[in-house]
């Protein structure tokens, strides 16, 4: 993996990194991917369907709860809004998108 590839991945992950870090990560990723790549050879035989690997056929299912009011309305509003870097009234403030 080269520096450009790492910089592009960092861009996809929305993380600012410098060229020096990208260079160092490219070498580290080569070593890590060589190691984790062992799973590719072994798990090809016997070939298992990806859906089956995810347990989609083994009875695993989503557990849902009723979409009803979980708590009294408003009791967490201040606690949560106080954590936001910028707020305006009862809204979280963000910069203009368009």
């Amino acid at each position, binding site marked *: 993996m080269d520096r450009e590839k790492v910089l592009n991945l960092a861009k*996809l992950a929305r993380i600012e990194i410098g060229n020096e870090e990208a260079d160092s990560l490219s070498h580290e*990723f080569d070593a890590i991917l060589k*190691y984790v790549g062992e799973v590719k050879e072994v798990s090809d035989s016997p070939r298992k369907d990806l859906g089956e690997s995810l347990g989609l056929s083994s009875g695993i299912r989503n557990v849902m709860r009723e979409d009803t009011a979980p708590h009294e309305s408003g009791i967490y509003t201040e*606690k949560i809004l106080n954590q936001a870097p910028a707020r305006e009234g009862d809204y979280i403030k963000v910069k203009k998108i368009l």
Partner: protein
Amino acid sequence: MTPEEIRAKDKDIHAFLEVFDDAKSYGEGFLSGKTIAIKDNILFAGHKASAASKILENFIAPYDATVIKKLKDAGAIIVGRTNMDEFAMGSSTENSAYGVTKNPHDTERVAGGSSGGSAAAVASGMCDMALGSDTGGSIRQPAALCGVVGLKPTYGRVSRFGLIALASSLDQIGPFAKTVGDAEILYEIIKGQDILDSTTISENTYPRKKKFSKVIGIPRTFVESEGVDKDVKKNFRESVEKFKSLGYEVRDIELPHIKYALAAYYIIMPAEASSNLARFDGIKYGLHKDGKDVIEDYFKTRGEGFGREVRRRIILGTYVLSSGYYDEYYGSALKMKKLITEELRKAFEEVDLILTPTTPSPAWKIGEKSKNPLEMYLEDIFTVHANINGCPAISLPSGFISALPLGIELTAGLGREDNLFIAGKEFLGE
């Protein structure tokens, strides 16, 4: 101990990120009077929870994690929040944004990780018990390196509601204690199905079909593999003899795929982490670094707020999930998970427990392994199978080598924590 006494004692260890001045009991129960430390990724309403990251430096938990509610109801006194590798990514607490935790047995050495602060706090007597989280060995490995008991329960046994997520298919909260008996008490308090965590299991999810018959299996080729310290192997053989003298039947078993659990783990974990940590955007909560527009805010906040190991794993996770590599890496890792799960299921038809060392070496010198990420990752070799499969595992103190503690690990079938407690108590003479 008073908060001042804990702080004084912690000066040389740095197990705590914060010792609470307002620690008190919230009720009466099985934990009345017991002091408990919590890992800094567990939400305790009104208190900071930073996951040892700069990106959450001033984050105040708006609500209690389910485990905190249970601790309060049981009368526990929560004394402080403990140091950890940032977002639980690491095996030494060297990745904490707030400094390394030192091993109470030798302060030039690491306490292990990622729940190193919890392990060191219990080992040095600063609290009676502690909570940690274990994604690939983050309770059991520091427990072994600090000479205490550490349990990772069955996946889904303990609610993760209010736990800052690393890899949601692997994460599990569990106890640290000086004895197996205490670890069992804390486990009994925190376990249970929770409507707020849909992955929690009921008592009937894994029915206890097989009667405990004191049969231990050893994956011999795995345990004897290269890279395992010779003193660890010697201590392991002594532990095997001890189990035999306690009336256990010990037999060698073959688990041909278990050595690949670590490779599968270092694909699945970063993949899930890259997705879970996408929520830290500098807008909703936590650190905000200003750029010229919204997108630049993201880049700056995440670039500066996350430490190096966290950046490394998010970017690696982005790679293994990216178009063109998804099947090759993530798909293959899930297939491996399936093979290992099947292999362990079959093994537990024959044996009650699987025994390995907890770690391939005792605690190492601070800084010794931090240059090479892959070398650090190999620390998890004996612990990750339990997270990949979801089965419970416990680390027990098994002696010392040159004054450094070592641990052995017992793994049981899904839902069979009971077997770990029986064998653990017998091994430690409780």
